[in-house]
């Protein structure tokens, strides 16, 4: 069924869950991220955040261009602790 499509693959969040929190009144990506954890996994929202923005736009009528995205945070790509620690020593 359409509603069971997984949108955030890292945290396994479905379209149904996302629509449910939007209907509860959480109409910013920052809040949806904090409540459901979507975009907080390995890909840091690179796979899902655009899709969630589109769902949010469809449900609320605000154009995607007006939707504020969560801050992108370092590192751009997950890096092992010992690699980062080695940078410090060099």
């Amino acid at each position, binding site marked *: 069924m359409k509603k069971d499509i997984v949108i955030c693959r890292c945290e396994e969040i479905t379209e149904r869950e996302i629509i449910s929190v939007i209907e509860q009144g959480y109409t910013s990506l920052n809040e949806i991220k904090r409540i459901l954890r979507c975009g907080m996994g390995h890909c840091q929202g690179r796979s899902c955040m655009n899709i969630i923005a589109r769902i949010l736009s469809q449900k609320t009528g605000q154009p995607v261009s007006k939707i504020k995205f969560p801050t992108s*945070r370092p590192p751009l790509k997950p890096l092992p602790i010992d690699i980062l620690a080695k940078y*410090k020593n060099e």
Partner: protein
Amino acid sequence: MKRTADVIVIGAGIIGAATGYYLAKKKLKVIVLEKNFPCAGSTGRCIGGIRQQYTHPLSINVMKESVKIFSTLHKEFNKDVEWFQGGYLFLAHSEDKKSTYLKAIEIQKGFDIPVQFISSDDCAKIINGLNTEDLLGGAYCPTDGQANPFAVTYGYLNGIKKLGGTLLNFTEVTKINVRNNQVQSVITNNGDELFTPIVLNATGPWAKNVSKLVDLNVPIEPERHESLVTEACERLFDPMLVDYRADGCYFIQNFGTGHFIGCYTPVPNDPGDNIKASSEFMTEMPRRMARLVPRLKGIKVIRQWAGSYEMTPDGNPIVDKTPIDGFYISAGMCGHGFMFGPALGKYMAEIIIDGKSSLALDDFALNRSFGKAEALK
């Protein structure tokens, strides 16, 4: 329509949310004003640790009450808040630290906190893969723990709404009207005037600026603290590991998710409202983590951010009425707001309703001397 409230709470972090909830439970009409979205300030940037290991008797009492409340929140909210009593372990790598912890334990035992100093071998039994080099042992309290700051804060805020209160996001207070030394109303950035006899300043790192709206000066200054989180992995250990060496750090494995989350206190401190992430932290924190638990070295860091500790001169919060009638403050949490929040919310609600709290908060008074600093900041 003229909008009125019994209490206007400024700030939807843990302090505003918890206090607003306990006020709403006592049938007061509460409006919470949040200039951004809930948890956008310090609460949503903290790492979620909850401990009773303090040296100030009042902090220990407040935390005993908070732990009691945390353990019932899932029933109160009918929702899991990822509360887990995995303990806190303060590591002693020097005789000096050991004696600090032993003294602290003496104080804490007087309050029936089940804390004890354990050997370095016992530390290694609790922390799978701990590097025991130079380790003299640690102060361990198994009833300390962790919870999810978002789940707790949103739980309180949803409770306020269910009790008939209101949360207004993206609403900043630009002016507080005072007449004859009594709060009358607040003006928001939308130009709305909300009438209320009581305003609570629960704005964390912005508490000083918001107090200036009523010409009140409070000694609260933000400083930057940074954090990072790793990918999730199988459970390695339960307690928050605290290494208070000058180049130490503290981190914990999230009970709900399995991520390791941690931070350190920069030396020297980093005053100001800059909350940008630094490359210094991104390399230094992994070094410190891997030194403590070498087997973490292959785990990947996925995200780094920063937030503000809101510091007072003595490392203890300010929870009090003020010389302006109807203007209250609960801020200056010094990095402990999330864990103090539930108990201080309850006590502040009592102060607002009854004029005093069931636990005397004199040592968190606005006009105290700020002379005696907390040893376990």
